[in-house]
């Protein structure tokens, strides 16, 4: 990096980020229907009008990763935050669904925290990914980003009539298994939801998919079926995950599952190629097609929740 191309390289990176900034994914919840559209799209402002509130989800920043196809994961995270800041209506909060860092190093957490300080939103909620709990079972993560200073780290909160639940499924993983919630967390979840009416909209978020998306690659959670059994009585449940660095979704009764894109690098479609991991063969300038953030808007409605999605790239 110590040569005369440095400046040109930085400019290319900047232009790449700019291109990406026109190609994010926006989630709108309108009249009980969750809908996606591009950030920066002219329709966005009009779509905002009847939304009661919005929040943006970002995921899998992998600060510390510095290989193809993305040598500048800090730059692409910064661009994500700028994209959220550029929204006409400020999201009420940000949600980071894990893998803030690549190797759980203190300096990686420092960098992540520094970039997130550029966000204009008042609050960021975090859950850890498996990359954030290496070596210390997440002690450093929870100390810096934990919502509740308690064993396990799971939490819930209410926001404008919607009940949000942050689950941890990257700790105490068993040999041969997938993600894990564990008996203690499941008992807490059951109790947490017990007092809520079935009309309360729920948003549940965790890093690893809470459905068996592709177990051969570890894309699932061993005891998610038990957790889902507590959610079935609710009329509107959205489950937001990260981990797989691409958008996948599934509807199961009133429960809708989504996985988010990464702000760092894409991973292959389930089962394509020998295993998961960064897609290195991304055409120059095309990286932004694979990265993204999502913005969720909520509208009070009487209809059962349904989901549509448009992904612009």
């Amino acid at each position, binding site marked *: 990096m110590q040569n005369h191309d440095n400046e040109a390289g930085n400019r290319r990176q900047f232009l790449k980020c700019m291109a990406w900034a026109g190609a994010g994914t926006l989630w709108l919840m309108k009249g009980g229907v969750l809908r996606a559209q591009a950030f920066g799209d002219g329709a966005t402002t009009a779509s905002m009008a009847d939304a009661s509130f919005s929040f943006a989800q970002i995921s899998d920043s992998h600060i510390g*990763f510095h*290989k193809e196809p993305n040598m500048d994961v800090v730059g692409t995270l910064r661009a994500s935050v700028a994209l959220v800041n550029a929204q006409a209506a400020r999201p009420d909060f940000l949600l980071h669904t894990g893998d803030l860092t*690549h*190797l*759980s190093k203190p300096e990686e957490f420092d960098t992540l925290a520094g970039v997130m300080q550029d966000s204009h939103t008042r609050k960021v909620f975090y859950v850890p990914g*498996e*990359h954030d*709990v*290496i*070596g210390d079972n997440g002690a450093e993560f929870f100390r810096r980003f934990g919502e509740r200073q308690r064993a396990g780290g799971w939490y819930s909160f209410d926001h404008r009539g919607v009940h949000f639940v942050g689950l941890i499924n*990257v700790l105490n*993983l*068993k*040999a*041969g*298994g*997938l993600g894990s919630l564990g008996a203690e967390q499941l008992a807490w979840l059951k109790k947490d939801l017990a007092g809520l009416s079935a009309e309360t909209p729920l948003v549940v978020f965790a890093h690893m998919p809470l459905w068996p998306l592709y*177990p*051969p*690659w*570890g894309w699932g959670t061993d005891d998610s079926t038990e957790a889902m059994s507590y959610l079935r009585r609710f009329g509107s449940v959205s489950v937001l995950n990260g981990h797989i660095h691409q958008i996948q979704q599934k509807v199961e009764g009133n429960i809708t599952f989504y996985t988010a894109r990464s702000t760092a690098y894409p991973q292959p479609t389930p089962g394509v190629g*020998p*295993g*998961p*991991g*960064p897609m*290195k063969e991304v055409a120059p300038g095309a990286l932004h097609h694979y990265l993204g953030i999502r913005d969720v808007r909520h509208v009070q409605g009487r209809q059962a929740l349904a989901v549509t999605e448009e992904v612009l790239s």
Partner: protein
Amino acid sequence: MKAIAHGYARLHVPRWRLGTLLVMGVLCGVILASPAVMAASASASRKVQTQQIEIRNFAFAPATLTVPAGTRVVWTNQDEEPHVITSAGSLFASSKGLDTSDSYAVTFSKPGTYAYYCSIHPMMVGTIIVQ
């Protein structure tokens, strides 16, 4: 059933630093060196046999390795993703997070079956059979 020694090796260490690193390694019990140097110094002193396990595409190769007691087993991560070698049942110390090209070594002194997995990608499992 305790394995007696373990340590890390990072590939591509600049040659001019090897001497310094080896001294540091001996002092703190963690040895940093290129595999070639490591193998040479190990065989010269104690005739320790070394076996390699490659981590690639989220799998250990070979998944099952049978070795005589006293063998030093070296895992090397060839993935872009980090991995953590963890003994099922804590029969040997876990590695730190191994980034691309990082290695981790454990010397198995006692016969037995040592199951292990990656603590952050637990579907990755392997077994060392020490005879």
